């Protein structure tokens, strides 16, 4: 489709940039197309439309911080020496001069204190990793809360969950590399986790560490996992994630002219390319400033790893905090010996069972929801969180679980900073981790339903103007005014929910219906999911309410100074002759 560019800034040119005679670029394009057939592949994609919304930018932050991770990571590899060979540090950092340490620690100090820009790159790398994982999580929440994971995007959701898992593992292997006291303590805990694995755990630990902990193999092995294995898989999955995004086309918010059948937005070339490209520089720039101004992981303060030492307040990076918190709230003594073999429930449960289980639950969410609703249609319009109260509440319950587990991972810090008893914090979280999500579920769902009622109120009775009028007989009432057609349409552009009812247990001929049990379960779940939801008003309800409002207006028409209320809010209409401009208040 073509755009009226008559008024577009003249610097943009009003004519298409077709050269009259072959330019060097043109001949190069011809040369390439003769061999690669690029024109066919690009004719649609160059002007591919992307819808615009701030929340669609969250995944982009993750993508660009990954690019920053690749760039800064390559820089670091030029000096980093992933060796556990023992040497005596003789570099610039005076406090550690003459101290024995591994070559990986010494080369980390060398990057930090003897390579110009080295500390900047180290800190940028670490900050970019934080932002990578944080933005993936927030992006995941956005996708879940808006129902963007529904068909046909379930597999992209699964890929996204795997990216989060791999990003976390990549982070752990990365911060273990300097072989400082803090990260070494983390590696020793990881050794404990491996050893808690039934049957094969001890051998897994010995094989990974090349013998007894700590050995001399772990850092080089983590290094190759960190710089080759996981980044390779991450890159492949990110590529798949993006390809599916392009194939499905991005979801969009409902609104006038924005339907399940179309996508409304700006073309890839030039607007989206410019916005996304510019955004890369902004993400890069913010990370550079953070790397320059904010100290992160000052390994020189922790000192080299020594298996007999530890610092108080030992914490993993924040994204590993929630399994660590679960580990901390396990009550004393959860270990059993069966037939002479030790089973460490106190480690297995919080590390080897619950986190993988949570990941599986997360990945299954769209499939569970799809099964309950029986909705097999493609969905391209996003839902507001309030319009899927049960889904929103489930996500908030999961977030509450995560948040409480994460807080438990910092129970020592909380105790110190707030001068509380660490035991009491732990007892509290042991209970709250079960009750908190239930409470959060209930509050969130009621909250969503209230917001749905509020939306219906606006549709039926108009929005609140804040203007109080007094009737001739002295009654006070707040003036309500009808929503604009655009706003009203946007509020109603959603499907009505319908509770699934299982068919009777037997059909007309008295034969038991197949799958009765699962159908019954589905009917129950469907009812649980939908039955409290508030549906949008019908046309008849809307007309009745508007008729009522007109009647009210008629009653007030006889007032001396009829006020439509628009004088007092910013909904007043412009003079129709004036050219409406944006950003011109």
């Amino acid at each position, binding site marked *: *489709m073509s*755009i009226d560019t008559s008024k577009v*800034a003249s*610097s943009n040119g009003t004519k298409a940039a077709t050269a009259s005679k072959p330019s060097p670029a043109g001949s190069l394009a011809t040369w390439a197309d003769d061999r690669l057939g690029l024109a066919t592949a690009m004719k649609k994609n160059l002007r591919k*439309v992307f819808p615009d919304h701030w929340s669609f930018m969250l995944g982009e932050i993750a993508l660009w911080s990954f690019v920053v991770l690749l760039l800064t990571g390559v820089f670091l590899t030029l000096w980093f020496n992933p060796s556990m060979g023992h040497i005596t540090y003789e570099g*610039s*950092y005076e406090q550690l001069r003459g101290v024995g340490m591994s070559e990986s620690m010494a080369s980390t100090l060398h990057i930090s*204190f003897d*390579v*110009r820009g080295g*500390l900047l790159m180290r800190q940028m790398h670490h900050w970019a990793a934080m932002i990578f994982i944080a933005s993936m999580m927030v992006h995941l929440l956005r996708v879940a809360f808006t129902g963007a994971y529904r068909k046909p995007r379930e597999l992209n959701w699964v890929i996204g969950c795997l990216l989060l898992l791999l990003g976390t593992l990549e982070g752990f292997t990365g911060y273990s590399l300097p072989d400082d006291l803090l990260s070494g303590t983390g590696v*020793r805990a990881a*050794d*404990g986790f491996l*050893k*808690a694995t039934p049957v094969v755990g*001890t051998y897994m630990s*010995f*094989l990974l*560490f090349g013998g*007894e*902990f*700590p050995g001399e193999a772990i850092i080089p092995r983590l290094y190759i996992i960190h710089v080759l294995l996981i980044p390779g898989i991450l890159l492949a999955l990110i590529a798949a994630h993006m390809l599916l995004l392009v*194939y499905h*086309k991005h979801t969009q918010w409902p609104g006038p*002219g924005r339907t399940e059948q*179309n996508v409304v937005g*700006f*073309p890839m070339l030039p607007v989206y390319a410019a916005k996304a490209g*510019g955004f890369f520089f*902004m993400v890069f720039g913010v990370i*550079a*400033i*953070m*790397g*320059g*101004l904010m100290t992160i992981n000052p390994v020189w303060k922790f000192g080299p790893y020594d*298996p*007999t030492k*530890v610092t108080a307040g*030992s914490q993993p990076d924040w994204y590993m905090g929630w399994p660590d918190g679960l*580990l*901390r709230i396990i009550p*004393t003594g*959860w*270990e059993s010996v069966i037939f*002479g*073999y030790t089973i*460490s429930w106190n480690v297995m449960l919080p590390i080897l069972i619950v986190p993988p289980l949570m990941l599986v639950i997360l990945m299954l969410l769209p499939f569970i929801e799809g099964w309950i609703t*029986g909705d*097999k*249609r*493609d969905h391209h319009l996003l839902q507001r969180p309030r319009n899927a109260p049960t889904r929103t509440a489930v996500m908030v319950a999961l977030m509450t679980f995560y948040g409480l587990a994460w807080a438990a991972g910092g129970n020592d810090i909380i105790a110190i900073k707030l001068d509380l008893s660490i035991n009491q914090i732990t007892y509290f979280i042991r209970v709250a981790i079960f009750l908190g999500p239930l409470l959060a579920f209930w509050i969130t769902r009621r909250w969503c339903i209230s917001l749905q009622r509020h939306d219906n109120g606006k549709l039926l009775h108009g929005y609140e103007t804040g203007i109080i009028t007094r009737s001739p007989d002295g009654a006070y009432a707040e003036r309500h005014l009808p929503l604009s*057609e655009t706003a*009203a349409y946007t509020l109603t*552009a959603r*499907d009505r929910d319908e509770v699934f009812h299982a068919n009777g247990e037997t059909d007309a001929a008295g034969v038991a219906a197949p799958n009765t049990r699962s159908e019954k379960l589905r009917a129950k779940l469907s009812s649980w999911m939908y039955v409290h939801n508030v549906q949008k*008003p019908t*046309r008849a309800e809307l007309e009745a309410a508007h008729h009522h409002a007109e009647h009210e207006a008629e009653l007030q028409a006889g007032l001396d100074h009829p006020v439509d209320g628009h004088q007092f809010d910013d909904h007043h209409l412009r003079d129709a002759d004036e050219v409406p401009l944006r*950003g011109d208040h």
Partner: protein
Amino acid sequence: MSNDDNRPVNGPDGTPEPYSDETGAQSHVPARTPADPIADPGLPPHLWRPTDVDPKAEKRAERQIAAMFIAAMISAVLFVVAYFSFEVGDNWDTFLGMGSSTVALGVTLGTSLLLIGTGIIHLARKLMADAEMVEMRHPAASPPEDREATIAALNAGLDEAGIGRRPLVRNTMIGAVGVLGLPAVVLLRDLAPGDSLDISKLAHTLWKPEMRLVRDVIGTPILASDVEVGDLINAAPEAMFPSEENGYPELEGAEEQAEKAKGAIIIVRMDPDELTAATQPDKWTVDGIICYSKICTHVGCPISLYERTTHHVLCPCHQSTFDLADGAKVVFGPAARPLPQLPIKVDEEGYLVAQSDFTEPIGASFWEREKL
């Protein structure tokens, strides 16, 4: 059964969109009725920006963008200046607790990048065409005829291969490829080559009868009479500090680290009356001096925080708390077992020595722990 009939025509050109539904049995799924109760008013008209209609605004935007790009160039040059003018090394904490070089490089690089980014986005927002475009979606699924053609091609291919008709060939082929997993797994055996895979090492430490307890940093032996009530001493086996005098063999590399990780102990002294029977006060302690493994029985962090009044020691990793007066029983936190106790005595010169190795494996639990 399809919902297509109820669906409004929303394409801007008025054509109904192809849209495949797998409704079938899902007849309870409500029809898509976005036109209910309000009809789609359609895309709002495009609004012109000041930069579209006002040449002054347009010029201003151009100047703003160019200014950002120029400032970005200046900042990049300043980066180079900072690179050569600030030393790293001995001024590592001169500014904001960091090297002036790091701060200057980060700020100039970041400013340059941010200015380029904002410049490009400003360009996109102010000067590039901003009319929204409409593109029609297509169902994610392939058209039915494509599916049929693919299945036909697949069947033709499989049929020509004849694998399905020759189960012997099929099964042996699957078996052959499957058995290839064995070499793949076996190849990993030498991740821990030779007897470094001997897990029975977990049951032994350097401690043996008559070995002195020495301070963990300097390696000096500890006189029982020097240990005060309330002291906590981090100690190690004397064999960690081999010398000609004590005659212990040199330890190197991985072995030294592993022994260091296993042999670490804490020595505390408390009033002998406070020690419970669990500590075996008559057999394993010396006048209220008692010695435990320093390695937490939870996941193996070295424990460190000693509270003298309660004689509790806390692991800083996951807050397991052990009562040292009561055989290091776990009084709080996720650990399941007490810290192993090292039986000690004094030698003729009055120094603390071990009676034997630990009587159980130290540190984190593992599957075969009770079997070693």
